[in-house]
């Protein structure tokens, strides 16, 4: 799924990068806005796919924990959960190396040459990205996209919630947050399994856990607020420098 969407994201970003090259101090605002919107769409798709893709590369080679014997004879348990945390730490580190190099080089390109160069530099680098991905694609572990999975997950959630609604909002809330909500939607508990249920009980549990994860994310906008403000501390104080 990741690679398919990422490719679309790449194409969109390249399309977006072309108009953005046109943006020089005299360039049309319109082309900039269209470029920005397309770029936003591309980045949106790309960002959602790239980190799972990176982590899947590791998971494919080490699906389970294993015991590694050190040269000293010490036996070390390699836990996949901890390793995935590490993969994500390093992935984030790489993004920030890029962010730092990009921001500093763009500032100087703009200062000494002009905006066109500071937009052109990342564009040139970006063109390498799909070339690299296509060139190396046979070395990547890819998961084919499963087109209907999102639809089925929503249908499953809807199915599980059926009959749990009530005019009393408290009761509805209680029913919907009950741990048993998903039990009734497991294919093995149904006498006549509907035709669209082409999955097993374990997948229902996975969807249940995924929905919980999304509920966790519902709180994150509050977390991002201070994050956005820290960038503006300097704005407010720097303009006074």
């Amino acid at each position: 799924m990741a690679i398919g969407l990422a490719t679309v994201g790449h194409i969109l970003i390249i399309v977006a990068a072309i108009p953005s090259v046109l943006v020089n101090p005299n360039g049309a605002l319109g082309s900039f806005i269209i470029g920005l919107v397309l770029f936003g769409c591309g980045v949106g798709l790309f960002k959602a796919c790239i980190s799972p893709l990176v982590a899947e590369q590791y998971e494919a080679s080490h699906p389970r924990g294993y015991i590694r014997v050190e040269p000293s004879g010490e036996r070390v348990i390699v836990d996949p959960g901890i390793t995935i945390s590490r993969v994500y730490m390093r992935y984030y580190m790489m993004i920030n190396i890029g962010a730092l190099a990009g921001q500093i080089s763009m500032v100087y390109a703009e200062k000494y040459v002009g905006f066109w160069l500071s937009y052109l530099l990342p564009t040139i680098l970006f063109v390498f990205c799909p070339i690299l991905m296509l060139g190396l694609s046979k070395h990547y572990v890819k998961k084919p996209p499963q087109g209907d999975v999102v639809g089925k997950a929503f249908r499953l959630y809807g199915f599980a919630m059926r009959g749990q609604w009530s005019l009393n909002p408290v009761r509805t809330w209680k029913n919907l947050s009950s741990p048993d909500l998903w039990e009734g939607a497991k294919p093995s508990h149904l006498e006549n399994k509907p035709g669209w249920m082409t999955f097993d009980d374990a997948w229902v549990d996975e969807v249940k856990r995924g929905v919980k994860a999304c509920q966790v994310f519902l709180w994150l906008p509050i977390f991002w607020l201070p994050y956005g403000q820290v960038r503006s501390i300097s704005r407010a104080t720097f303009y006074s420098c």
Partner: protein
Amino acid sequence: MKLGGVPNDIVHNLNPIALLIFIPIFDKVFYPQIARWGFNFTPLKKIQGGFICAMLSMVVAALLQHFIYVKSPCGEFASDCEEPPNLTVWAQTPAYILIAFSEIFASITGLEYAYTKSPKNMRSLVTGVFWFTHAFSSAIAQAFVPLATDPLLVWLYVTIAILTFIGWVGFWWTFRALDRDNDALDKLPEGGYQSNSAALAAKTESVEKV
């Protein structure tokens, strides 16, 4: 603020610089040490750590802005002042370091949470939901723009620190049970899933066999 010979770009990029310094420290020293102490630092606890560091960084920002107002020759209208307040730019560093901590705790962990807790065939979608919260928050931040001006900046940071505190308490309260179940959830087996076409193909095959 006084630059004191520091290039402006260094100060603007304190956030990625702080991340480059602290990610390896967290990775190699801090997290392993916590594990050695036997503390199960679950993803939800890390995200709570992120809320706390983000809140502290807003507290630092509010204090800093207060001192800028006190020290600036123009008082509460420091931003448009010709003469900078007598403070070094490095005074902002703690706010950047704290926000870098909060990113390591909450942002990296959030991505990891999206990956490990979603069904194996829906990982990108859930990661997308994670990033969507960032975009949504930028929209909420627009509501604070009227506060982002002299002499209200101190109140802007204080308001957001309070909101983040409420967010942290709410987050902890809501997900107490989920946090307890963390390890069990990680051990869920992978579900079997067939797309419609695969299911149809399997059905046809079994019919043909009969």
